[in-house]
């Protein structure tokens, strides 16, 4: 079977899982459904012969699942009841998205065939990557040699986002400490 058919099956499974994640009332079950979506993305990367991305996606999925379970388990949520306005909004959204899809069909004809991109840089990397960088893993040679600037940007993004998250979390934990001290006194 060609790869495209497998990927179509995985995509259908992912769509079903994401609808299930929205509709299931139990929090743990919907977290598991989100995990199925992430696993589907990882499998897609594996079928498209990108094991590097598949590994990273799979690991981050585990990481996100642990955080979600720790954050949302044991909490009670109240369901939003469907009102007339909600139904109208849903209909408007569906109509808008469908019309955008219909208008964008003609754009798909302009796209190059699957696996035949217009840019030819990839072929250069395949031909000369191992000789010029000495790395057997071509992905490594691209992200850390040919495109090392991008990786520096990624590192900067990670560094800045974690600084921001830490400063917010630190303020909140200090506020909590002060509150408990004032309660004890």
């Amino acid at each position: 079977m060609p790869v495209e058919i497998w990927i179509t099956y995985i995509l259908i499974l992912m769509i079903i899982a994401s609808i299930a994640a929205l509709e299931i009332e139990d929090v743990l079950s919907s977290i598991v459904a989100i995990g199925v979506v992430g696993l589907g993305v990882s499998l897609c990367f594996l079928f498209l012969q990108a094991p590097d991305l598949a590994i990273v996606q799979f690991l981050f999925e585990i990481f996100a699942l642990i955080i979600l379970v720790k954050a949302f388990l044991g909490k009670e949520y109240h369901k939003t009841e469907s009102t007339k306005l909600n139904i109208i909004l849903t209909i408007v959204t569906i109509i808008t998205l469908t019309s955008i899809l219909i208008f964008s069909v003609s754009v798909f004809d302009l796209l190059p065939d699957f696996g035949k991109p217009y840019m030819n840089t990839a072929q250069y990397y395949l031909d000369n990557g191992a000789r010029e960088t000495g790395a057997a893993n071509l992905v490594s040679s691209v992200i850390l040699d040919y495109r090392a600037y991008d990786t520096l940007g990624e590192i900067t993004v990670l560094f800045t986002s974690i600084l921001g998250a830490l400063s917010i979390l630190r303020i909140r934990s200090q506020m909590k400490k002060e509150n408990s001290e004032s309660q004890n006194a």
Partner: protein
Amino acid sequence: MHKHEGMTLIVKTVTRISVWMILLYGTYIVFHGHLSPGGGFAGGVIIALALLNVLLAYGRNFVTEWLSIKFLHGLESLAASFFVIIGILGMVYVGYFLGNYLSKGELFNLLSAGTILPLNIVIGIKVGTSLFIVIWFLSELKIDKGE
């Protein structure tokens, strides 16, 4: 000391043995980034998950004694600056930023591919420590109780 914290004795014993294997696997993924799929990001996440395993099994107080968060914080910032330093050294030796100035070596050898190996190690340390620090600060907030 903190005997009643964390999970049961069975989980703690299994974690005590398995966490070193997970750390070893993460280090392997980082060091073989230029030979096999993986690299700094994937290996770093595995290292962070191993530390998270200890945090879940043993509880927060044990981890605070076992690891110094300030040290991890310093390591994280140091790794980020080492990436830039390696890049600037490329400017000195080859003439452009992040140039590959170390010896390329033989294909498929562990010590090959010039600056790709040190950059992978630096990224692995950076990702591993920073993800774990975020988890550690989140665990302080007791988010499961809504505080």
